[in-house]
């Protein structure tokens, strides 16, 4: 049995690690304890919390606004309106309200904190291999400063779909994927970047997003209806103005609900349409599958009927996160370096002295 040869092997690997633009620190000896997790060197513009468990976009101000609006409005409802309504009408009102509130918060946090389906960037070997294949396909590169945009055509269900090459991530984007400029990531089945939830909405969190806006519509309508009921019941006893004076919180809640209910219900309706036709917001805005582009244009991803489309979007399998943000960086794994300056790194056994 040959000896382990540990330290020598580590020396080889560490030589490779320090070469290139990889931002990770390379453990030079086995004794070094600082093993970093992958989220610390993630190339996209994301913020991570709780040691990589939570992932959000960089701009989260509007998300905090959403949180505050929901918490304050619901809090006021439970504190001021529910006691009166529970006694006067039924205690089921705060119970149902409570269930709706927890569902809204649960789905909101799931949408905001989870990985939307980010595609990890290509490793240097992959990028080099792709560039080689593209050069072969194009003939040698044209004399321009930048070669013409690279696309690949694929036939899906009889429809021709163009796959674009992403210059940032150095991959050919899968169908329905798109690059989010705010987060600087390619996201699978990219729907849109939502500032209200502080994250992209993509393949992995679209159903949470939909459940969020649906339950929020119900919650908003619920609170609005019962606040109005509360004020009306009170006015029957003490007059309208006195009722408003007795429970000023109701006025605030009514105002917030009134102004938000239209957009939230509108959004729910829009996304219900998208789900039933299996389109993304991105595709709908671009009109990728509309009839206006031509009679032969149809959506190749649709399953044909509304029921199946809905079931798949909401109850289909969830793929796990591809970016493994809490994993440890392995010293011999090539990390995706942003500028690939043409020098390919063939894994762990290439010597620095060759360069």
């Amino acid at each position, binding site marked *: 049995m040959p000896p*382990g*040869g540990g330290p020598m092997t580590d020396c080889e690997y560490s030589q490779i690690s320090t070469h290139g633009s990889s931002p990770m620190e390379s453990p030079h000896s086995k004794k070094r304890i600082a093993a970093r997790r992958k989220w610390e060197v993630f190339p996209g513009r994301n913020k991570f919390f709780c040691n990589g468990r939570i992932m959000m976009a960089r701009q989260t101000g509007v998300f905090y606004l959403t949180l505050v609006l929901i918490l304050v409005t619901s809090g006021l409802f439970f504190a001021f309106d529910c006691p009166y309504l529970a006694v006067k009408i039924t205690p089921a009102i705060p119970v149902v309200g409570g269930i709706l509130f927890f569902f809204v918060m*649960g789905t909101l946090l799931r949408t905001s904190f989870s990985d939307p389906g980010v595609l*990890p960037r290509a*490793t240097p070997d992959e990028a080099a291999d792709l560039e080689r294949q593209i050069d072969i396909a194009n003939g040698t590169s044209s004399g321009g400063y930048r070669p013409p945009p690279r696309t690949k055509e694929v036939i899906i269900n009889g429809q021709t779909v163009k796959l674009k090459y992403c210059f940032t991530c150095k991959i050919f984007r*899968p169908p329905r994927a798109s690059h989010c400029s705010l987060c600087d990531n390619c996201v699978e089945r990219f729907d849109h970047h939502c500032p209200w939830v502080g994250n992209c909405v993509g393949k992995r969190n679209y159903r949470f997003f939909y459940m969020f806006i649906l339950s929020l519509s119900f919650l908003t309508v619920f609170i609005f209806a019962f606040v109005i009921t509360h004020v009306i019941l009170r006015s029957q006893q003490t007059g309208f103005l006195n009722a408003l004076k007795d429970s000023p919180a109701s006025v605030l809640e009514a105002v917030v609900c009134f102004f938000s209910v239209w957009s939230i219900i509108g959004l729910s309706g829009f996304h219900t349409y998208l789900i039933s036709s299996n389109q993304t917001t991105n595709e709908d805005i671009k009109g990728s599958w509309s009839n206006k582009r031509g009679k032969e244009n149809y959506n190749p*991803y649709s399953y044909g009927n509304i029921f199946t489309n809905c079931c798949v979007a909401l109850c289909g399998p969830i793929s796990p996160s591809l970016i493994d943000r809490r994993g440890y960086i392995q010293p011999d794994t090539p990390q995706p370096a942003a500028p690939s300056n043409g020098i390919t790194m*063939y894994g762990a056994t290439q010597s620095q002295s060759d360069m």
Partner: protein
Amino acid sequence: MATEVHNLQELRRSASLATKVFIQRDYSDGTICQFQTKFPPELDSRIERQLFEETVKTLNGFYAEAEKIGGSSYLEGCLACATAYFIFLCMETHYEKVLKKISRYIQEQNEKIFAPRGLLLTDPVERGMRVIEISIYEDRCSSGSSSSGSSSGSGSSSAGGGGAGTR
């Protein structure tokens, strides 16, 4: 089993990496995860076409099983929705279970078929499900190998009994 795994590790240390071949995704069926079964010319001298195709087809089958839309996946989805998705904190999804199966299968294939031929399959999940990366190794002591710069000899002696690769 232990000696076979040891051989895999030795492969990484003792042989020098010559090149890598990437099997790209096949999108003709939509966005589901399938890989192209086209046989890459670089593997022509290394492995039989049938073995390679069988491996890729089995992998494709596994991925199709993971993404299968049917009764059990709907049940899982509805249950998760009913618990406001808190159930994911304690339960493993069907997809994750199949991914574990896949990684066991790849490990097994590497030990039995690919490593003895100087090849190594990387689990696609480590490459973002974009490619199946096949690393082609040249034996250090084989002459005329087109390795792109082997490192100064590692102290560990290889299973093949080669010395330090001198370049």
